[in-house]
């Protein structure tokens, strides 16, 4: 490995971020290379200088202020929901309800129409039967006959 590559690895070497194989190779190289050895020393000195760094303390009221800010955001969000937003939110449920109601109404009317059509059809077929059998009304069927039984079913007799 050339010195330039070793030099690029020295920072990671000092941080303990090189592999065991790299560590052995670098250590071996440092024994014989004065320039890389000097570079390592300088990098160590930089690390030492970086230790001189001030630190900030957290204000004892930080959490209180943080919670207050979150609470303020919440209350703003509640107040800030505009009328249009509420309308948008209500639109979908309202549309769904209207759809269900209209479906119910349409279904009911359709049912009525079908019922009426069927009743008329039955009355027509009754008239046709009477005409074919040449009886004035269904009441004129002889007792015990199929026509009499059918008539009985229609009028709800026994």
């Amino acid at each position, binding site marked *: 490995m050339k010195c330039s590559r070793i030099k*690029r690895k020295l*920072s*990671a070497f000092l*941080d303990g*971020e090189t592999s065991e194989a790299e560590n052995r190779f670098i250590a071996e190289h440092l024994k014989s290379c004065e320039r890389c050895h000097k570079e390592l020393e*300088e*990098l160590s*000195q*930089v*690390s030492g*200088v*970086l230790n*001189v*760094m*001030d*630190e*900030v*303390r*957290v*204000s*004892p009221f*930080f*959490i209180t*202020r*943080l*919670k207050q*800010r*979150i609470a303020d*955001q919440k209350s703003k969000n509640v107040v800030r929901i505009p009328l249009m937003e509420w309308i948008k939110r209500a639109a979908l449920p309202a549309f769904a309800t209207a759809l269900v109601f209209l479906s119910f109404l349409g279904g009911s009317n359709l049912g009525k129409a079908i019922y009426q059509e069927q009743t008329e059809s039955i009355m027509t077929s009754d008239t046709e039967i009477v005409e074919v059998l040449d009886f004035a009304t269904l009441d004129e069927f002889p007792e015990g006959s199929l026509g009499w039984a059918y008539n009985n079913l229609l009028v709800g007799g026994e």
Partner: protein
Amino acid sequence: MHSGTSKPVCDTALDTIRDYEYNRTNMNSHTSEYDSDAELIQQVAKGNENAFEQLVKKYQHAVFNTIYRSIGNYEDVEDVAQEIFIKVWHKAKTFKGKSKFSTWLYRIVVNHCLNYRSKHKQRLVSLDELVEREKMPQSLVVEVDHEQRRKAEIVRKALNELPERQRIALVLSRYEGRTYKEIAEMMGVSVSSVESLIFRAKASLKEKLLQLKGNGKI
């Protein structure tokens, strides 16, 4: 001995000291990540404010100092820290547990620090400004002697002059004790990129700081 009437004042002072000591002892606690972090963030996702407070208390000191060293001024540290923890509160539901909580948190910290820089177009700090900074509210700074503070300002100035990604990678490695792999996750880059960022940062600092050291300024 304290009289009965002065007790509440003493209690408050003691609480403040205890809080401060708690923060100091926990500043490097990320190396032994507690299992409870995952449980706490799950509770936060459900809107549990006590769990949120526990997480904030645990990480606030480390977050404050990472921000401070990354953005380079006192004034905006608390504001940026608030924005970060507010994001944690709102985005807790999106934490899936694929990484450690602290890695997820620091990803937010890194993004905020990068955004801060691009928003505020960090100025280079002049010597006059360094003097002015001596007058910053000392309640915010951990007490050190004047000489050490002066040296620290010079180091911080040198850090401020680094390109932001180099600086943040170095801060996370040098002051937060993060591994290159963790930093790579936090910054969304490869491990070799982190190695390169830190190498270049140290090379720049070497030129500046060793010259000052040779002149006896630090």
